[in-house]
């Protein structure tokens, strides 16, 4: 035996060489002390994260090859197998070795196995094809990755006829069809009518497929046994094979091999080969390594548990925590269960009882209910559950059924974690990878379980390259077990004794910014949460009476500077204590030197800021620490957390001893700390920092992508909160005047006063700076009546656009759902979208139809400025609002709160004439609107209203704190997808392989065509050769991949979905069909997109490379044109030259331009551009996907230099350009200009598909629109100021972001700053209000004005500047407490 193994186990000698020679691309994200010269850019040493062939795994089939000894005269049977499950390797090898050793053997066996993922490597694939050439038997199992399934199919198909037997167990239908056993064949799979094939036909039903297959396995043999015909015999042997396979043990596999070779290998004809029947194990049950048997009954199992001699009293006592484990049966039967045993030992050693259940099928929902829920009391028998399978609860790698999984988990009602064993990579490959977990495993075993509500994708088991066996990763197992027990503790501890650490953020580090979170009034929310928890029995001793007092106590001295220790210090941690409590402290020294350092420190101790109330601690999360350090911003791919940051979490975990930490609002820095993208190792900072504290995270419902990062990297249970209710922007000042003038023009235009009114309109429009948006004729010019209509129509259309913009007013407070009237604008927008798939016609469409128009035409006409269409659109809009308001009013009580929607609704819906919308419409020109369509629509709106006002945010938090299951739900835009509501759900993203959807492709085409149309107008009728664009994670989640689809459509390819609806392939659209040249792209993916959609980056890269290689004329294929040029200039091949898909290096996010701008720490635009180039030039290469992100700066620069246009998408109505810093952070407009040979500024566009009337606007138009609807709009800033402290900060943020746009694109008009100055500074009363509410933020506001002027973005009078300078010193003094 030893000889067998040792001879075949020799590693290919090339390997160690490959290790040392091939690419060294990624440089370390930590500065190497040993290489001080590395700070100079050219000297940066890049090191590769992947070795060898650049694929995800470097293992080869050779470790699985068993060749019999030469000297026998027996016939040889050669078996080739391909499996997903490496656990079969050791079992199968053992089986074949025993056969070969058997003295009475009838044949020699040669066997070689391939793991699915290995077939990506061309060399391995070639070897595979070659192995098949003389193979007798092929075996395949769980081949569900389309690309690879097709490769398997192609290779096996060629040899299928010749081979003696082909056996494929559950896999994609394409591969299943290869099955062949004598007369038994599945080539008709999906077409035949026989009941046997019907079974496989039902595969579309997903998980049911594997389970019905199992059922068949159990029942069919009994029947078949008695059927005499050969056919039945072959089918019977297939079923037996499946039983042997699922039985998995070496014994079973031995008999399986005997049976198949004896029956089908011609050389063995006439030899009587004896084999035993398969030994069957339980399909589902409870397994424990010490137990004498598997149990089918949890009571029996627990009885045995109590009799264990080896356990201590603590574990036996009724008080021990109980953790449920979910295991895969195949690991148990094949004997590859070391990693399971490790978890069981770790749990028991830590005092937790375990109930480890397993199932053989792909549906665990049944077993979970059967074994974890007490059949009598219906209460859970476990405190928490950990699935060690990595798979979604229902469906495994095949088709999932999330609703069924959620239903089972809701019944169970305990925290549910899904840990991940390495499948496609070996331990060392995972450790070395900056990506972390293999992307396909991320899609299958991280993204899909999240849809079930699964948490904490902790990689707990590695895989050995030689044996394929799983083994424990001891630290990861420890982390997993402690965390599972601690989640369970939440179920066991009393409310009074539970300790909660509430963590708030401060971005950027400034005292005016403590408690920042998108759309959330943080302190009011905390106050509301704590008041509620107090009532509920939590110990919140000493909580002040009001939220203002709470702010006061935490900030301690609001007017002091943040950097001085004048925030309230709750704990001083000595350096020695810090080092003892923080085992990874030394790892931070490379970046930050010895502790304590100068951040969150008084020079001797590390300081934890915050305040404690009873068992609740409210703390301020330290910031990254390098915000103000331009060198770090520029050069560090990412830096480690600083000592103060680590000390904060050490305090929470080990000094305060929190039972849970509650991160309060979107978003903090913990989850963005360096480490692997997904599947953290011991060396990843987010994992080390969060330690073993259960993490609950309030997250804005409209930001599923970053919420997902928090979920994966900091193990958060993300509970969604609602963004504040949106309102229409409305009109003010000159714009309002314009509206009035237009309305009088409409009534008086034929009276002869027309020309006079028009000239007033023109001059007012000029005052309002509308001249850049609308081509205004000279006031004095004589113009015809038609032209007058057109001018008025265009101005009208513009101000209507402003008026109807949605803006979130004020900030949301957790536990305070919007009032009914506040929900109106949201409902109107929900009502404005056609939803054909649900049979819902939009309200505007219904109304337009009553006057014989189609809504799409009205939109088009209005966009063109046709006065009567603009007017009709306004009427439709007004009427929609009126009808929805009338409806909402009927469902509210006297206080204006929505009450009891359901009852009211049914009474409303009962009586036709009483329907409030009918009543309302009867007084309008739309009185004939289709009643049935309206009824369907309003029924839907009623459901939405119920959801909008439902308040689950506090409820879900309490559930999480009590160790219950929090219902999962999608994040996104409630207007597009009302399923986001009600908030208070554990937010998840989507199945990354499901996008782009067909519908998203349709919308994408519309936007691309409009963009091209627009660019041709601005660019002398020429097509843009290259468009530089940005892909956002959230955007693609909300739109199901619209912008992803845009990229595909620009280069002229379409996605092709597989049988399961997963998109893993693209094909070119012919030039005839496309009707235009293929447009080149430079795609900049956000760091979050890269983390969530690495498969899609792979898809895009393959698409671009495919297009570059198409044999087409270069004037019709700009991708090819540029790639050919670049390949020549750079001396690289065309595939490498066609590198277009860029992002940050792994583990790093954003270009940091946002930080530089927010902190005003930049010298000139060149510096910002360098930052962009150095941080965003990492490419994904589909030819070496395992290598992760590789720096390709040269190609990046060359590609950008061809760009004629830059382009971004807005993803939801409430977030626009100046609301957040990330849009300008990723804008390359000025950079492109500096790179272009002709120095021409590219056009810059923003697509807005957030409303029913999708638009492509120029960037400057969008910036103006944004300034008018937000920063300069009294409705908006007054709304913000009603939130006080936080509101001032929001105003300042908009101005700072506007400066960001000046810096990256130069597309901000002077008047924007001028008007802002008039509004906030020249207005004394306003200025004083701002200064008093939040002096720190006000100071920043003043400083930003001065900066805008100083950098040349704003020209203004000397007086204005003098005033600002004076104000600055005044507010400084105020902050410093110097009274004059």
């Amino acid at each position: 035996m030893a000889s067998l193994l040792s001879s075949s186990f020799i590693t290919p000698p090339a390997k160690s060489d490959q290790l040392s020679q091939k690419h060294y691309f990624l440089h370390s994200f930590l500065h190497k002390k040993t290489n001080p010269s590395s700070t100079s850019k050219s000297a940066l040493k890049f090191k590769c994260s992947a070795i060898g062939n650049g694929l995800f795994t470097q293992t080869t089939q050779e470790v699985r090859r068993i060749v019999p000894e030469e000297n026998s005269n027996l016939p040889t049977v050669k078996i080739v197998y391909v499996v997903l499950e490496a656990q079969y390797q050791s079992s199968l090898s053992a089986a074949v070795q025993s056969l070969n050793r058997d003295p009475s053997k009838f044949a020699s066996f040669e066997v070689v196995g391939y793991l699915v993922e290995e077939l990506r490597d061309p060399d391995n694939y070639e070897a595979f094809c070659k192995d098949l050439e003389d193979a007798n038997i092929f075996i395949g199992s769980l081949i569900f990755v389309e690309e690879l399934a097709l490769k398997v199919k192609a290779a096996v198909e060629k040899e299928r006829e010749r081979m003696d037997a082909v056996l494929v167990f559950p896999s994609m239908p394409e591969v299943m069809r290869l099955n062949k056993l004598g007369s038994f064949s599945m080539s008709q799979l999906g077409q035949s009518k026989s009941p046997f094939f019907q079974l496989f036909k039902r595969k579309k039903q997903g998980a049911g497929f594997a389970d019905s297959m199992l059922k068949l396995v159990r029942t069919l043999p009994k029947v078949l046994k008695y059927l005499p015909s050969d056919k039945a015999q072959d089918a019977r042997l297939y079923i037996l094979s499946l039983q042997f396979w699922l039985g998995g043990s070496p014994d079973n596999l031995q008999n399986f091999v005997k049976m198949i070779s004896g029956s089908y290998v011609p050389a063995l004809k006439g030899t009587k080969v004896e084999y035993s029947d398969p030994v069957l194990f339980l399909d589902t049950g409870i397994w424990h390594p010490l137990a004498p048997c598997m149990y089918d009954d949890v009571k029996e199992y627990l009885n045995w548990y109590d009799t264990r001699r080896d356990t201590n009293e603590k574990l036996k006592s009724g008080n021990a925590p109980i953790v449920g484990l979910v295991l895969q049966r195949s690991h148990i039967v094949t004997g590859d269960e070391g990693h399971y045993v490790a978890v069981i030992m770790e749990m028991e050693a830590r005092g937790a009882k375990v109930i480890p259940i397993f199932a053989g099928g792909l549906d665990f929902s049944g077993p979970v209910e059967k074994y974890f829920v007490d059949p009598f009391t219906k209460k859970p028998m476990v405190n928490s559950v950990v699935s060690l399978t990595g798979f979604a609860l229902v469906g495994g790698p095949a088709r999932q059924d999330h609703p069924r999984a959620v239903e089972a988990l809701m019944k169970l009602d305990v925290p549910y974690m899904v840990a991940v064993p390495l499948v496609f990579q070996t331990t060392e490959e995972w450790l070395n990878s900056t990506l972390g977990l293999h992307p396909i495993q991320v899609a299958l075993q991280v993204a899909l379980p999240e849809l079930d509500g699964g948490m904490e994708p902790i990689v707990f088991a590695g895989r050995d390259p030689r044996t394929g066996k799983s083994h424990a990763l001891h630290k990861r197992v420890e982390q997993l077990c402690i965390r599972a027990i601690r989640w369970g503790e939440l179920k066991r501890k009393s409310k009074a004794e539970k300790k909660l650490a509430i963590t708030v953020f401060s971005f950027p580090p400034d005292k005016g910014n403590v408690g920042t979170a998108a759309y959330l009034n943080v302190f009011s929310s905390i106050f509301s949460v704590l008041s509620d928890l107090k009532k509920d029995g939590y110990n919140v001793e000493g909580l002040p009476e009001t939220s203002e007092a709470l702010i006061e106590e935490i900030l301690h001295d609001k007017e002091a500077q943040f950097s001085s220790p004048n925030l309230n210090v709750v704990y001083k941690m000595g350096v020695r204590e810090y080092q003892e409590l923080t085992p990874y402290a030394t790892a931070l020294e490379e970046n930050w030197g010895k502790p304590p350092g100068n951040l969150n420190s008084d020079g001797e101790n590390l300081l934890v800021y915050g305040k404690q109330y009873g068992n609740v601690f409210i703390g301020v999360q330290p910031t990254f620490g390098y915000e103000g350090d331009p060198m770090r911003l520029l050069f560090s791919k990412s830096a480690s957390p600083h000592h103060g940051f680590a000390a904060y979490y050490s305090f929470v975990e080990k000094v305060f001893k929190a039972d849970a930490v509650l991160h309060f609002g979107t978003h903090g820095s913990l989850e963005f700390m360096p480490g692997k993208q997904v599947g953290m190792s011991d060396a990843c900072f987010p994992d080390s920092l969060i330690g073993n504290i259960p993490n609950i995270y309030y997250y804005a419902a409209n930001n599923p992508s970053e919420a997902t990062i928090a979920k994966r990297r900091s193990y958060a249970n993300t509970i969604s909160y609602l963004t504040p209710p949106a309102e229409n922007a409305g009109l003010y000042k000159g714009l309002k005047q314009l509206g009035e003038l237009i309305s009088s023009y409409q009534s008086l235009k034929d009276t002869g006063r027309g020309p006079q009114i028009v000239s007033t309109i023109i001059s007012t429009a000029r005052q309002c700076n509308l001249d850049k948006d609308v081509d205004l004729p000279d006031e004095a010019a004589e113009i015809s009546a038609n032209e007058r209509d057109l001018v008025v129509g265009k101005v009208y259309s513009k101000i209507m656009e402003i008026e109807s913009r949605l803006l979130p007013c004020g900030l949301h407070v957790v536990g305070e759902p919007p009032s009914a009237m506040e929900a109106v604008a949201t409902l109107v927008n929900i009502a404005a979208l056609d939803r054909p798939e649900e049979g819902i016609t939009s309200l505007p469409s219904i109304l337009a139809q009553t006057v014989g128009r189609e809504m799409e035409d009205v939109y088009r006409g209005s966009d063109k400025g046709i006065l009567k269409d603009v007017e009709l659109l306004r009427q439709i809009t007004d009427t929609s609002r009126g009808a929805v308001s009338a409806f909402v009013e009927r469902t509210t009580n006297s206080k204006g709160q929505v009450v009891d929607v359901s009852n009211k609704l049914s009474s409303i819906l009962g009586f036709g004439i009483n329907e409030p919308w009918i009543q309302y419409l009867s007084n309008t020109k739309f009185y004939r609107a289709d009643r049935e369509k309206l009824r369907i629509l309003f029924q839907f709106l009623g459901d939405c209203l119920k959801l909008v006002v439902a308040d689950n945010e506090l409820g879900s938090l309490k559930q999480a704190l009590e160790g219950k299951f929090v219902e999962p739900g999608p994040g996104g835009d409630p207007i597009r997808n009302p399923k986001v509501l009600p908030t208070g759900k554990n937010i998840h993203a989507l199945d990354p392989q499901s996008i782009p959807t067909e519908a998203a492709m349709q919308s994408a085409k519309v936007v691309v065509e409009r963009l091209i149309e627009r660019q041709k107008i601005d660019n002398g009728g020429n097509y843009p050769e290259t468009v530089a664009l940005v892909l956002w994670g959230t955007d693609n989640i909300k739109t199901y991949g619209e912008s992803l689809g845009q990229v595909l459509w620009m280069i002229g390819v379409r996605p092709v979905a597989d049988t399961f609806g997963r998109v893993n392939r693209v094909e070119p659209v012919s030039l005839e069909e496309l009707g235009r040249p293929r447009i080149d792209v430079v795609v900049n993916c956000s760091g979050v997109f890269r983390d969530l959609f690495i498969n899609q980056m792979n898809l895009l890269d393959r698409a671009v490379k495919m297009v570059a290689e198409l044999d087409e004329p270069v004037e019709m294929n700009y991708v090819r044109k540029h790639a050919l040029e670049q390949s020549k200039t750079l001396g690289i091949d065309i595939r490498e030259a066609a590198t277009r898909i860029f992002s940050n290096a792994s583990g790093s996010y954003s270009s940091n331009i946002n930080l530089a701008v927010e902190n005003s720490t930049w010298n000139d635009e060149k510096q910002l551009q360098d930052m962009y180039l150095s941080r965003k030039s990492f490419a994904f290469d589909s030819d070496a996907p395992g290598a992760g992100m590789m720096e390709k700066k040269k190609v990046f620069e060359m590609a950008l230099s061809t760009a004629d246009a830059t382009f971004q998408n807005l993803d939801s109505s409430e977030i626009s350009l100046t609301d957040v810093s990330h849009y300008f952070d990723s804008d390359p407009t000025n950079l492109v200009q500096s790179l272009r040979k002709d120095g021409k500024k590219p056009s810059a566009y923003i697509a807005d598909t957030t409303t029913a009337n999708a638009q492509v606007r120029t960037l400057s138009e969008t910036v103006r629109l944004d300034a008018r609807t937000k920063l300069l709009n009294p409705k908006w800033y007054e709304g913000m100021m009603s939130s006080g402290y936080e509101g001032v900060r929001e105003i300042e943020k908009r101005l700072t972001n506007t400066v960001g746009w000046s810096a990256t694109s130069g597309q901000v008009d002077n008047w924007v700053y001028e008007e802002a100055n008039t509004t906030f500074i020249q207005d004394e009363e306003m200025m004083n209000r701002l200064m008093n509410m939040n002096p720190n933020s006000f100071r920043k506001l003043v400083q930003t004005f001065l900066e805008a002027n100083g950098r040349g973005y704003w020209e203004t009078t000397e007086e204005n500047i003098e005033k600002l300078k004076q104000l600055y010193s005044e507010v400084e003094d105020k902050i410093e407490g110097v009274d004059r």
Partner: protein
Amino acid sequence: MATNSLHSLHRHLTNLLHHSDSTATAIPLFSSTSFPKPTAATSSLSLSTTTAFSSITSTTPSTSQPAAPSTSLDLLRRHLEARDYRQADDETRRLLIALAGEPAVARGYVFFSEVQFIPTPDIRAVDELWKEHSEGRFGYSVQKKIWKKKAKMDFTNFFIKVGWMKKLQDSEVEQYNYRAFPGEFIWELNEDTPEGHLPLTNALRGTQLLNSVLNHPAFEGDADGDESDDDLVEQGRKRIGGGDEESGNKVFKTDYSF
């Protein structure tokens, strides 16, 4: 149903133990990249050994059930005297399983909570032998000291200190992976052989077994630098002396997976 599965599983297990020496040998203790398997004397372990296991429970169908495997220290002593640490290491693992009791023998590895059943004198005797033949640098009590003092009871630190993990060369950050068994371990007592390198306790199933071994009452106070008790050791030798080493040898495949 349950009983049925018990039989079959047991059979499967026994089978694994008997006939899969080679696979078992290939299971690395500290898994990692492939290394040619050394031509260790383990191959002398017969493949065709007749069943030599006691049943897990009385319900197990009985084949022939010879006596429990030997707990004699003679073989270990001989290997150590010959400075054949590779063999001694295997034998130590075998002894540990045998000492932990019949269920452990049937299973092929020791569950952490079974360590308590190992008599103090026995495990101490094993430890003494190692120390005696390694100039005091090998043995559980040596490991205990390192674990408690130098590694601050952290197993990753411990593994690094005793050389059971290796630093990854291609990693961007400082990371360690398990060494592959047996090729990457050091089977000689050299200047640079880390203290406490042997005997090995595998991390395939986590660290709780090793934790229990190091916390065995036999090594209580070891980290405080106590002198070992010669009398006890002597007693232990007497108690477990004798026995049939041959059968003991045959029963056990070199399974590193406990």
